[in-house]
């Protein structure tokens, strides 16, 4: 793994270039925000619909910079024990029993031993604060909206000072701040105090050309003709009144499905068979049954012809 230091990145184009080497195609706006986040050492807060590549950017960034990726998946009730650290209680108990059996009376020494690094179980946030030979890791805090306000408040401290406090050991400070990426699907509003400490970006659905580039990078086996049809169809599908619009992830999935079925071009029958790859709600699938899919396909083809 070749590490790249942040100082070597001097321009926004380089970020775009680095990410595209990892198969992540992004527009100039996103590249600018990533560049600023690296340069200013600020966390990056990405919001957007599901499947627009928010999580993917952290992975691509870690791979491009040769850093370790540490992922903290948020869920309701996430607490310090699962986010920062936990003591290895079973081992501690055994140590106490052993000390009792051996009859050693030095309580101070026992206590120092029990609360040492040996018995510490490190969780993602603490791991990210530890020095790493490849440079500061990329810390991905995924789907922040799934957790609750108390955890957000906790993150405020961790992200503004890049340090965590363990009562028995003291404060642990990151020698070099990790590259932090936070993502949210916006199932609830994240508090402004946290957003204020981050660089914000709304990740939107890509336009036709960019989505085509992404598909080329992610599903290179698909023929040019098929790729164009897939992207055109998904793009016009997004203009329909759907409960959940398909994201880029769905486009890629769908392309892989079609490849597995050896489809050379889209047809209403093929679409009907594979609709489950792009639409995930029964209402939406029901809407597209019958002539509706054909209409959108024709519309997409018409768009391709004029382009």
């Amino acid at each position, binding site marked *: 793994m070749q590490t790249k230091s942040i100082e070597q990145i001097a321009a926004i184009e380089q970020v775009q270039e680095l990410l595209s080497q990892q198969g992540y195609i992004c527009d*100039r706006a996103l590249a600018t925000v990533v560049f600023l986040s690296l340069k200013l050492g600020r966390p990056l807060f990405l919001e957007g619909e599901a499947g627009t590549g928010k999580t993917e950017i952290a992975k691509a960034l870690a791979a491009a910079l040769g850093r370790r990726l540490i992922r903290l998946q948020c869920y309701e*009730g996430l607490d310090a024990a699962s986010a920062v650290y936990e003591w290895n209680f079973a081992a501690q108990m055994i140590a106490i029993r052993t000390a009792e059996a051996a009859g050693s009376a030095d309580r101070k020494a026992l*206590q120092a031993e029990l609360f040492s690094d040996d018995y510490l179980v490190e969780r993602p946030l603490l791991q990210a604060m530890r020095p790493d030979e490849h440079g500061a890791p990329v810390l991905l805090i995924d789907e922040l909206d799934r957790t609750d306000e108390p955890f957000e408040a906790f993150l405020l401290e961790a992200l503004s000072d890049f340090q965590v406090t363990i009562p028995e050991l003291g404060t642990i400070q990151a020698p*070099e701040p990790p590259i932090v990426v936070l993502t949210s699907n916006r199932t609830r509003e994240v508090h402004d105090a946290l957003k204020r400490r981050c660089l914000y970006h709304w990740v939107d659905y890509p336009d036709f050309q960019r989505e085509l580039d992404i598909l080329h990078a992610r599903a290179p086996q698909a023929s040019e003709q098929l790729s164009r049809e897939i992207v055109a169809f998904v793009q016009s599908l997004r203009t329909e009144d759907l409960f959940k619009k398909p994201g880029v992830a769905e486009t890629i999935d769908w392309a892989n499905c079609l490849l597995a079925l050896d489809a050379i071009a889209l047809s209403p029958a093929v679409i009907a068979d594979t609709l489950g790859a792009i639409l995930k709600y029964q209402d939406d699938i029901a809407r597209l049954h019958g002539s509706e899919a054909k209409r959108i396909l024709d519309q997409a083809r018409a768009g391709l012809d004029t382009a």
Partner: protein
Amino acid sequence: MPDTPPFSLPDNPKLVQNLIHFARALRKAGLPLGPGRVLDAAKAVAAAGFTSREDFYWALHACFVSKPEQRAVFAQVFRLFWRDPRYLEQMMAAMLPAIRGVQEERSAKPAEKRAAEALLDGMQTPTEAPEAEEEEDGSEIEIDSTRTISAEERLRTLDFEQMSTAETAAAKRILAQLKLPVQPIQSRRLIAASRGEQADWRRTLRTAARQGGDLQDMARAKRRIRWPNLVVLCDISGSMSQYSRVILHFLHAAANAKGRGWAKVHGFTFGTRLTNISRHLAQRDVDAALAAAGAEAQDWEGGTRIGDCLHAFNRDWSRRVMGQGAVVLLITDGLDRGDADALGREMQRLQLSSRRLIWLNPLLRWDGFAPRAQGIRAMLPFADSFRAGHSIASLQELADAISCPQDQGDKARLMAML
């Protein structure tokens, strides 16, 4: 931050000054920006360089914007400001009357409407970095911050200026009696409890260490409880006009009784269109809150399009306000002449996304009420509970109606009559 990269502020003091003015303009336009953000922006511009207009735009965007809705406002202000600051003053002057609450009746020119929509409606506006445009294109824009007029709707703002003393007294009394209306949810967070069902190893060991390694008591913990969010969808069409006022009183009371039954209260009104009034409900003063809500919703006592409004809610809001399991209170008479199938589908979607869907129908106070109207027939099967708003004119009935978490209300009786 421990080691902030060594970016000094840009040498050009003019630029920093302009950034400050730009931030002030954004603040006037409603973006909450502190001085810290301006500092960030200056550093960001220094890092990104001041060569390309697009980079400059996105660098500032990253620092100043923190919500998707703000993107359109940012795009507008950016376009106007970084061309000619005087232009912005003109725009702000145009907005001022509306800010002061003076609303003139005048027909909007097409360009005005467009500009107002661009400023207000973030969802439909493309937010690409604006390209340099010709001067004459922008010079027509004046901000019409009064409401846009639509021809087919009867727009009326209800007068919520004053609340009678009797009403105030009644509201206060009921507010004091407002019970915890639903059962709390078991959260996954733990709280120390002497008789809890789970072992708290961390605390046990910490106590033991304090006592020199002797394990004495085992500390225990139990799961904490939390309150669900409440989402209220309130029909304010003509047929509901007697009730909407008092329902909004109730809503305000519920919104301000946080920690006493509800985590968050989201309020929506609908008649011919859906309006989110949650922000206004957060105001402490009930008169001010209802006046603001009354001004925001534009379809008071007009017609009803329940299906369309529920559709709009499901599409635009349900994922954002119901993510953590919310109880939905739907207050409508169900008199809808639209497509019954579509209405049923939207109602089903609403029920599927909510923790519990309670329908309050004021028509049920009539003894001979039967579910004959097609809207009611379409919606009834999907309500978890169907309650009469017997005398919905009193807040008490409303509070009582939702304080029984398990009951179905009159649903079973009415389902038999379908």
